[in-house]
């Protein structure tokens, strides 16, 4: 009997990872570890860069959510240069951002996490992907999904220069104003986006919720954790993506605290383990109590389900209806069933589509005044947005010439890292017995992280140690050039 099962690499997410599962003699799981093996070091090589280049440099942290980094960076620059963008610039930014939320959430549902439900978790490996989804929903529907996404990408290209690594963010505004043509395109895209969102919710009801085995899986203890939840809210405590305060609620739903992004260091701390490059964020106010959940553990979650938990609803009507349906179906708030993230994601998609429509219809968005040129000396700035995958904070310091002296980033999935670790471990323990782990079962373990729509490239920026070793480096003639020791 195997004592060790490995899933390598994990798939249908952004980033690298593997899951190592240790089995005891009884064939049950002792523990499952999700290891993230990647790192690039953005926080270091940001030093010495021009501050105004940070939106384009940090967007390369993630090519799936580049708009999130671009926006957090741009807002950090507003703060760094002590400058306020004109109203039209703010609206243009939020329009691009809302478009991005729709597109990215749709990408996850149809391409990344959704296939598990639409095609089925035990479907053959080769079908558990977008191609299987297209087969399941039909080619016409598949083409509509691809077409809607295409239209959203084209809109972002028009507003931000590129959807894939935007260029338009500047301290104090955006690089160009909106034309009436782009505004008309935005109106049309918003309408199509809302249809896409409502269709996806409907598909979720018909394909996922209508199947008792799925509902059982979603509400099962194996995929449930009771942690704190954090998300951005507006002045009325509704879910916000572009701007607002951060709100944290406890596992029982009571508000623990709210804070402005600039105070994040008072509330968020990072824990390190030697077996992964990813750092684990937790609440300073509660403390680190190991990999456990409950009110005594500072572990919290972010992203769709957590945002819904941390808020008091959605700011737009169709999204609010969908929110109420989710909450009542799952027995009230807070909802602790991790797989419900897939549903919450679609609720947010509808909100973002409605927000697109609001912004696109606003005549002020055509105002050509989209830049306030900074005049103050730059010092320090913090920018926050809700990335699709969670709260995203960029914090920069610069010298007087506007060259970055330090950069600290708390990146979305890092906030979820500890809870993801819990989810993978718990699912493995619940599913593997007698040492049996076939492909479908291993996929069900992967579903435990996929619900979070994690972005491991975003979440990693760290480094390793060593083993004792001696090596001799010789030239082509055999002469010893150098001896390298590591003790």
């Amino acid at each position, binding site marked *: 009997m195997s004592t060790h099962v490995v899933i390598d690499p994990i798939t249908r997410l952004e980033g690298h990872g593997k899951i190592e599962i240790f089995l005891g003699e009884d064939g049950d799981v002792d523990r499952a570890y999700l290891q993230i093996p990647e790192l690039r070091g953005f926080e270091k090589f940001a030093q010495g860069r021009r501050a105004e280049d940070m939106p384009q440099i940090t967007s390369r942290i993630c090519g799936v959510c580049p708009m999130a980094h671009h926006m957090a960076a741009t807002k950090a620059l507003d703060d760094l240069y002590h400058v306020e963008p004109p109203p039209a610039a703010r609206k243009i930014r939020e329009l691009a951002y809302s478009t991005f939320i729709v597109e990215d959430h749709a990408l996850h549902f149809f391409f990344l996490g959704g296939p598990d439900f639409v095609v089925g978790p035990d479907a053959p490996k080769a079908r558990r992907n977008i191609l299987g989804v297209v087969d399941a929903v039909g080619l016409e529907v598949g083409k509509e999904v691809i077409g809607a996404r295409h239209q959203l990408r084209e809109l972002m290209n028009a507003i931000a220069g590129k959807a894939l690594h935007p260029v338009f963010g500047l301290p104090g505004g955006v690089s160009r104003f909106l034309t009436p043509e782009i505004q008309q395109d935005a109106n049309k895209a918003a309408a199509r986006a809302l249809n896409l969102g409502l269709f996806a919710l409907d598909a979720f009801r018909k394909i996922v919720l209508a199947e008792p085995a799925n509902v059982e899986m979603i509400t099962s203890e194996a995929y449930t954790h009771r942690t704190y939840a954090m998300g951005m809210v507006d002045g009325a405590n509704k879910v916000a993506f572009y701007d607002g305060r951060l709100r944290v609620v406890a596992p029982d739903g009571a508000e623990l605290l709210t804070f402005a992004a600039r105070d994040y260091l008072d509330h968020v701390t990072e824990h390190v383990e030697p077996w992964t490059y990813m750092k684990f964020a937790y609440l300073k106010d509660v403390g680190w109590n190991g990999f456990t959940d409950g009110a005594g553990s500072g572990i919290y979650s972010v992203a769709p389900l957590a945002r819904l938990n941390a808020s008091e609803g959605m700011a737009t009507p169709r999204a609010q209806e969908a929110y109420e349906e989710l909450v009542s179906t799952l027995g009230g708030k807070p909802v602790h069933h991790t797989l419900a993230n897939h549903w919450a994601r679609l609720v947010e998609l509808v909100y973002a589509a409605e927000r697109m429509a609001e912004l696109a219809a606003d005549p002020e968005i055509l105002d050509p005044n989209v830049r306030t040129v900074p005049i103050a000396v730059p010092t320090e700035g913090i920018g926050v947005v809700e990335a699709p995958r969670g709260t995203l904070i960029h914090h920069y310091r610069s010298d007087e010439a506007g060259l970055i002296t330090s950069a600290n980033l708390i990146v979305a999935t890092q906030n979820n890292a500890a809870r993801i670790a819990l989810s993978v471990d718990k699912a493995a323990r619940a599913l593997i017995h007698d040492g049996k782990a076939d492909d479908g079962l291993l996929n069900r373990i992967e579903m435990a992280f996929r619900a979070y729509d994690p972005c491991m490239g975003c979440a990693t920026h760290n480094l390793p140690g060593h083993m004792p070793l001696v090596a001799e480096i010789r*030239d082509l003639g055999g002469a010893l050039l150098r001896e390298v020791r590591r003790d």
Partner: protein
Amino acid sequence: MPSETKVRPEAAAVGNVATGEGRFEPTIVAFFCNWCTYTAADMAGLSRMAYSPAVRVVRLMCSGRLDPQFVLAAFRQGADGVLIGGCHPGDCHYQEGNYKALRRVTLLRSMLRQLGIEDERLRLEWISASEGEKVQRVCNEMAEDLRRLGPLHVVLSKLGPEDLDGLLAVGQNGSPAIAYEPAEGEVP
């Protein structure tokens, strides 16, 4: 391009700064413009004005022909310093070439500083055809500056003990790479 630790056989031949055996003799690659500096260098040679033998002269038709890539290639291939010689301002055979050289070298020096290469390793001088003794003086001065600064090791891959596990014996275009063989029983 291959990723091997830079090997400089001549460093072994002439000695090592750290151990104090022998004295470090810097290698200078000099790009001299045909009309002025190269002629002056010729004259210095004919007049037996000795200057550092470490200077390797490359003749360009004009200092304006100097492509910053030449400077980097020189450093990569073992130069400790690069000297450029052109005509005095106003005397360029092609009118503007020397001004272009001045602009490029100035900006290049700023970039090299960020890459850890000291300003003194890139030098630009205006030397007319009759200034043989200036060629001698500049070359000797630069050699002295470089002796003080020490050799420039362009390390193409800064390997450390941590890397020995992961080294692969691969490389492109027949270039040598570092092959690591694990000790018996050791898992690579």
